[in-house]
C-alpha cells in the first residue's frame, strides 16, 4: 500500500483536465502523488515498482452511478463480492449501489450496512445511495439529511418512478437543504404499468403490450418544472427517448441543475434486439426505436447526456426463463459498459475523451466523489484500457453471479486490461 509505484509509458487521458498525452504517474499510499507527462521507464524514481503501460490508455478508474448489487436480500442473484469482481474486470473502480434492495436502503443503519459490507467484501469502492421515499412507496420522504451524513451519495427509488408530483416537489425542496441529488426513474407508472417493451411496430408484431415512449418525457418535463420551482438537484437515470433527451438539453441551456445518464444497452441496442422474445433484452426503460437510440448517441456526443451507467441488474434463471411479459426487467452490465462505449469511439460517433468523461469525471462530480480524475491527491483508482483489442463477449467470462447479459456472443473491440483501486491492482487481464 505504501510502496511507491510508477505507471510509465502510458497514454494519459484525464477528462477532468482535458489531458491526453504520453507519460506516466506516481502512486503512493493509495493516492496519486504526481501526474507526469513524459514519464517513461528510464525516468521512473528509484525504488519504485514500475508498471509499463505499453502505450495503452491510462485513465481514471470508471465510476458506475447505477448498479444493483443484490445485498441485502437477493444474494442468490448477486453479492458485493461477485459484483465488485465483475466491476474490476470491466474497469470500474467505484460503484454507486442502488438502494432498491430488500430491505431497501431507507434508514441510517442500512446505509451503514452497505458501507460495512462493501468494505469487508468488495474489491472496488462501493458507495451507498439511499431511497427518496420510505419503503420506495412514493409517499413519505426519507431522513435524507441523516442518510447523507451516514454516507449516502445520492437518493433514488431504484427502478421505480416517484410518481406523485407533490412528493417529488417535497423531495427536491428538502434536498436543497444539503444540495443532495435526487435521481428519478423517469417513467409515468400508469402508462408503463401493463407494458413489457417499447410500444411500436415490433411490439405490435410480437403481440407484447407496449410502453409508449412519451411515458418518459412526461415525467421528465414534469420534474423539470419542479426543479425550476424548488432549485433541487435532479438526475434522470437511463434516459432512452429523443424527446426526453431534448427536454433535458433545453433545461440545461436554461441553467437548471439537471443531469441525466444513459445505460449502455440504450445506445448499443434498439427494440429489434427483442427478436424472438429474448428476455435478456427486457430492460427498464425498454429498448427503444432506432431513432431514439441515435438520439442517445447524439446526446452523449454533445453532453446533453452526462454519464454512462451500466444499470447492472442481475437476475437468476427463475426470473428470466419466463414468458416475455412476465420476465423480470434488467440486464447485467458491469463488464460490458466500457467496451460498448468504445464502440461509439470506433464508429466515430463520440470522441474517446467524451466517453471517458461520461464514465469518470461526470459521475464523480454528480455524486461528489474525489475520484474520477488524474490529479495529485486524488485516489489512485485507475484503469488501463486497450481501446483496440478485438474480442467476443461470452457467457463464461461473466463474473457476476447472474449471467443475464443482452450482449452474449457480440464481437467487440477494446477493454480494460488492468484495474487499480487505491494503488493496488484488483484486476489484470491474463496474457495482456
Amino acid at each position, binding site marked *: 500500500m505504501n510502496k511507491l509505484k510508477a505507471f510509465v509509458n502510458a497514454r494519459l487521458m484525464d477528462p477532468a483536465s482535458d489531458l491526453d498525452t504520453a507519460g506516466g504517474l506516481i502512486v503512493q499510499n493509495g493516492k496519486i502523488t504526481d501526474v507526469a507527462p513524459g514519464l517513461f521507464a528510464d525516468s521512473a524514481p528509484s525504488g519504485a515498482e514500475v508498471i509499463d503501460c505499453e502505450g495503452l490508455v491510462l485513465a481514471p478508474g470508471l465510476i458506475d452511478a447505477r448498479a444493483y448489487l443484490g445485498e441485502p436480500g437477493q444474494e442468490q442473484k448477486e453479492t458485493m463480492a461477485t459484483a465488485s469482481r465483475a466491476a474490476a474486470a470491466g474497469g470500474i473502480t467505484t460503484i454507486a449501489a442502488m438502494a432498491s434492495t430488500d430491505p431497501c436502503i431507507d434508514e441510517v443503519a442500512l446505509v451503514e450496512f452497505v458501507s460495512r459490507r462493501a468494505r469487508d467484501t468488495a474489491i472496488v469502492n462501493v458507495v451507498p445511495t439511499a431511497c427518496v421515499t*420510505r419503503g420506495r412507496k412514493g409517499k413519505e420522504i426519507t431522513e435524507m439529511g441523516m442518510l447523507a451524513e451516514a454516507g449516502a451519495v445520492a437518493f433514488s427509488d431504484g427502478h421505480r418512478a416517484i410518481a406523485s408530483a407533490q412528493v417529488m416537489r417535497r423531495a427536491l425542496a*428538502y434536498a436543497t437543504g444539503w444540495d443532495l441529488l435526487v435521481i428519478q426513474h423517469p417513467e409515468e407508472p400508469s402508462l408503463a404499468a401493463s407494458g413489457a417493451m417499447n410500444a411500436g411496430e415490433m411490439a405490435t408484431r410480437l403481440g407484447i403490450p407496449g410502453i409508449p415512449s412519451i411515458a418518459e418525457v412526461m415525467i421528465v418535463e414534469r420534474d423539470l418544472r419542479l426543479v425550476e420551482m424548488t432549485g433541487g438537484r435532479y438526475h434522470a437515470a437511463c434516459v432512452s427517448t429523443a424527446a426526453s433527451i431534448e427536454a433535458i438539453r433545453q433545461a440545461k441551456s436554461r441553467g437548471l441543475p439537471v443531469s441525466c445518464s444513459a445505460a449502455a444497452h440504450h445506445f448499443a441496442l434498439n427494440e429489434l434486439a427483442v427478436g424472438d422474445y429474448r428476455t435478456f433484452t427486457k430492460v427498464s426503460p425498454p429498448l427503444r426505436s432506432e431513432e431514439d437510440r441515435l438520439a442517445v448517441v447524439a446526446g452523449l456526443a454533445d453532453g446533453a447526456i452526462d454519464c454512462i451507467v451500466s444499470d447492472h441488474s442481475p437476475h437468476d434463471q427463475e426470473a428470466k426463463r419466463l414468458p416475455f411479459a412476465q420476465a423480470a426487467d434488467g440486464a447485467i452490465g458491469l463488464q460490458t459498459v466500457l467496451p460498448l462505449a468504445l464502440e461509439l469511439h470506433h464508429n466515430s460517433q463520440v470522441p474517446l475523451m467524451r466517453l471517458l468523461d461520461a464514465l469518470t469525471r461526470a459521475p464523480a462530480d454528480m455524486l461528489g466523489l474525489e475520484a474520477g480524475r488524474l490529479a495529485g491527491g486524488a485516489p489512485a483508482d485507475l484503469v488501463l484500457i486497450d481501446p483496440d483489442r478485438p474480442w467476443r463477449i461470452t457467457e463464461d467470462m461473466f463474473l457476476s453471479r447472474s449471467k443475464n447479459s443482452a450482449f452474449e456472443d457480440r464481437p467487440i473491440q477494446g477493454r480494460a486490461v488492468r484495474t487499480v483501486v487505491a494503488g493496488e491492482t484488483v484486476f489484470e487481464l491474463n496474457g495482456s
Partner: protein
Amino acid sequence: MTSAQKPSASPILPNSPLAKGHLLGIEGLNPLEIGYLLDKAESYVDHNRQIDKKLNTLQGRTQINLFYENSTRTRASFELAGKRMGADVINMAVEGSSIKKGETLIDTAMTLNAMQPDILVVRHDQSGAVKLLAQKVDGAVINGGDGSHEHPTQALLDALTIRRRKGTLSGLTVAICGDIAHSRVARSNIHLLNTMGAQVRLIGPPTLVPKSFERMGLEVHHNMREGLRDVDIVMMLRLQMERMQGSYVPSTSEYFHFWGLDYEKLAAAKPDALIMHPGPMNRGVEIATDVADDIHRSAIREQVEMGVAVRMACLEVLCDQRAGA
C-alpha cells in the same frame, strides 16, 4: 427591566387598520401604534402581580371568546384579560355546538351579533375567516389566530417580552425557527419585528421555509448553526404532528437533529440570546428540555405572563377607539 412608560394619547389615525375598532393583524400597523399598545400593556404588568387584579375599565361590556380551534393558553389569557378589565366574558365552545351541526361562519356571526357583544375574540382554522366575520358584526373583533395568517396578540406579547428584556426592538437580530410556512405566529412576528426595526432571519427545512420568504426582505437559512450566528433572540415554533410524518419532514428525530434547539446549536447565537416559544412545546422535537427550562436563557414562561397584559391593553384600546376616546 424597564419601568412602565406612561401611556400617551392614542396615535391611531383614521386610515389605520385599528380605526374601525378591530385588531385583525399586525400587518399595516405603524411603529407608533405598536409602541402605544406595548406601552399600555406594560402598565398592566405590575398590576397583574397584585393580589387585587380587578379593574372596572370595561364594566358592563360583554366579551365573547369564539374558538373554532382548540386552545388552552390563548383562550384562558383572553378570558382573564377580559375579567380583570371588568367585562363579562363567555366562552363559546365550538365542539358540540350548533356550529358543528353545519351553521356557516356568517350565520354564527349574525346570531352572536344579535346578542350585542362589545368584543368578539375569534380563533379559526381558516386564514381570512376572522376578517370575514368582522365585516358582519358591530362589536370589536380581535383575531385570536386565523389559519396560517396572523396571530397579532402573540406577536405583541413576544415584542413586550423582548422589549422588557432587551430594552428595545430596534436593531436586534431575531431568528424564527421551524414551520414558518404554516405559522401565523411567524407571520405576525415578521410584520411586527420588521416594522419596529429588527432584523428577522427564518430558519428551517426548505419544505417549511421556502425561499419565497426572501421576497419579503428576510434572510432564509436551512442550516441552523449559520442562521443562529450572533442573533439576539431565538424564537422557536411548534412543529405540528401532521407535518412530521414524511410529507414535509421525514421524522421527528431528523427534525431535532438538524433544527431542534439544543445547547450545541445555541452556541452560535449571542451569549445572552433570549429563547422564546409560543407554546405548547414539543420537547425533544423542536427544543431540548434543558434549553427550554434554562431560567437564565428562556423567556417562555414570561411570554405567557405578558400575554394577559397585552390582551388587556388590546381590549382597552379597541373599546376606547369605539367609544371615540
